[in-house]
């Protein structure tokens, strides 16, 4: 194994490969940071270029794009409260409040360092445990997937801060948006009302852009912005990463838990960083000694989100390399790259092209280091965005996001989706509905339905396997525990409020 690693590093560390990885990381970060553009899009854009490259150079470039793309999402999430991709949604929850409190440097530093740690953790798990974890992923069936999604939804509802009924309603409303279009499993048309544009349902990226970017501009528009308001967006000049070693080590437990969540969710096909960041954030809040501070701009929230979404990269590579099953969009693109290079991803890859597999591992490690260096020196540049008056910056963000939304489907319906979900986000803010369960419902709606239907097909319409299969049962019990504990906490809170009024 060590021989293979040394040889992979030697093959990788040529001047041209290093240059390709640098380009890949920078382009990936840009694609990740601009809402609407994604690492999948960056990989798709560069895929044709890999025709003319050697296998090693091609994968060095593509891995750099993947890692840069996932990490880049934190920049816009922190600075402008619009996640670059669905993988960075939870970074907004504490990253932006921290930036708004004048600690943008600290927020970016935290995000970058823990992105790096998450990626490295994921890569090590990938290197040492890929075949074993791939076996587990195959053994889990639709029963477990369904209950896992249910558990994630319950957890998000539990930490959403709103009352339980509002949280559940928001989650179900999110799922309701996924009922439009072609049904999973049998592709039957639903609620399309004769429109071809509705066949694909509401696209996810424009939905997220609407919920964050448009809602943000509508909220900021409540008051005209003057020169005096600029002081509010000023940031404190900080040294290094913006946090101390003591603060770093205080995050040890949070980092480990989030990284494990990231890897596990990452290696389950179809889940990926989108679910991982929210689940890790919810877990960090639920297990924190000071859950009330989440959402106000604390380090813990950024650590949970960024560690988990980057750890999911290693996780998502496990089924790709070990089984030939892509876990998310970017890995599906990488699967295409294997085909272009005349290779077949799967168990045989470790035997027939072990040199390439280890080169991919090495590229992931080198790209992580390049990523942290580039982003460290980029902090000062990213912070310049805070100097632009919000009255100018927000319309620009909305324009760029709308272009990204259009580009993600090449149609006008995507732009209208941005507007529709901007209104939804704005109304949610006014009536006190939490956005997080809505997003998770919208993201996981198709997964929950397809897994439920597959499970019911397997069991011939019996719900019994959900409680007879151990993993599924544990997840169901955990979901129940989360709901009951949330209801009890809220009941206690109501009683305290009532007593205070009386």
């Amino acid at each position, binding site marked *: 194994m060590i021989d293979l690693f040394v040889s992979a590093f030697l093959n990788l560390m040529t001047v041209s490969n290093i240059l390709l990885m640098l380009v890949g990381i920078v382009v990936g970060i840009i694609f990740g940071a601009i809402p609407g553009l994604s690492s999948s899009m960056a990989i798709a854009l560069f895929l044709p270029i890999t025709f003319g490259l050697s296998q090693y150079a091609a994968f060095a470039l593509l891995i750099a794009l993947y890692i840069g793309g996932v990490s880049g999402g934190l920049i816009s999430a922190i600075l402008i409260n619009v996640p670059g991709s669905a993988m960075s949604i939870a970074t907004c929850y504490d990253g932006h409040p921290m930036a708004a409190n004048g600690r943008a440097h600290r927020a970016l530093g935290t995000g970058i360092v823990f992105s790096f740690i998450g990626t490295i953790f994921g890569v090590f798990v990938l290197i040492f445990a890929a075949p074993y974890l791939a076996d587990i992923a195959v053994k889990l069936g639709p029963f477990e997937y369904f209950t896992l999604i249910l558990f994630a939804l319950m957890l998000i509802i539990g930490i959403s801060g709103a009352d339980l009924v509002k949280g559940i*309603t928001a989650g179900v409303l999110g799922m309701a948006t996924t009922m439009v279009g072609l049904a999973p499993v*049998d592709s039957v048309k639903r609620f399309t009302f004769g429109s071809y544009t509705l066949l694909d349902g509401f696209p996810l990226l424009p939905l997220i852009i609407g919920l964050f970017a448009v809602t943000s*501009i509508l909220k900021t*528009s*409540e008051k005209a912005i003057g020169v005096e308001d600029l002081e509010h967006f000023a940031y404190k000049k900080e040294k290094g990463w913006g946090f101390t070693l003591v603060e770093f080590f205080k995050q040890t437990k949070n980092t480990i838990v989030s990284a494990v969540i990231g890897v596990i969710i990452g290696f389950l096909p179809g889940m990926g960083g989108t679910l991982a960041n929210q689940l890790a954030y919810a877990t960090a809040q639920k297990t924190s000694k000071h859950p009330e501070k989440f959402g106000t701009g604390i380090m813990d929230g950024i650590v949970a989100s960024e560690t988990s979404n980057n750890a999911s990269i290693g996780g998502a590579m496990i089924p790709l390399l070990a089984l030939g099953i892509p876990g998310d969009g970017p890995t599906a693109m990488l699967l295409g790259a294997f085909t272009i290079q005349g290779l077949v991803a799967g168990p045989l890859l470790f035997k027939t092209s072990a040199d390439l597999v280890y080169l991919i591992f090495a590229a992931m490690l080198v790209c992580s280091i390049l990523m942290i260096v580039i982003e460290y020196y980029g902090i000062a540049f990213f912070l310049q965005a805070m100097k632009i008056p919000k009255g100018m910056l927000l319309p620009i963000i909305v324009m760029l996001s709308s272009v990204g939304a259009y580009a993600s489907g090449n149609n006008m319906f995507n732009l209208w989706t941005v*507007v529709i979900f901007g209104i939804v986000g704005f109304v949610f803010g006014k009536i006190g509905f939490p956005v997080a369960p809505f997003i998770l419902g919208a993201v996981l709606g198709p997964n929950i339905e397809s897994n439920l*239907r597959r499970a019911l*097909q397997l069991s011939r319409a019996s719900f019994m396997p959900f409680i007879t299969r151990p993993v599924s049962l544990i997840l169901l019990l955990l979901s129940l525990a989360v709901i009951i504990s949330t209801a009890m906490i809220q009941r206690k809170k109501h009683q305290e409020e009532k007593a205070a009024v009386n």
Partner: protein
Amino acid sequence: MKTINIFTLKTVKFLYQYASIVIGVVLLIVSSVMMYFTKDITVVSNGLTSIDNAVFMPRVVFGALILLSPFHIVAGVRRIKTNISNGPSDEEFEEIANKTLRSLTALLLLIVYVWLVGKLGFIISAILYLFAAMMFMTKKENRKPILYVVVSAILVIIVYYCFKHYLYINLPNGILKGVF
């Protein structure tokens, strides 16, 4: 303008006092309508079980929303007295109404922008939108119209060029078809 303000003020006041009831009723009506439309969903015959079809999940989802709506209505009814007695003052309501009006104006700008993208094309509508939104969001005394026009035009053209030449995505040309 004054009539709109009074109308907005009254609406804001009403929604504040009866928000949960309105949410519950709207949910109930919309979910019931959607539930009714589930009858139009084709049930393909190759399902292995009676519930393995495309109608099952929409019925579960909209059924759940119908079941949840009474909770909002009951919570709203319980809160009416508190909302009326502990609610904001008339001046505060006026401020909320004015803020809401500004947000609605920003929304209108966005809707016009998206509508214009389909008619005039991306370049013209994006420049118009950026200029209008920047002017609207900034206080009168701090506005810099010339800067806004220059920034909008340069930025939009750069974005258009990058998407066309580097991402191979043609943004709508509209009336500028053939020019760019």
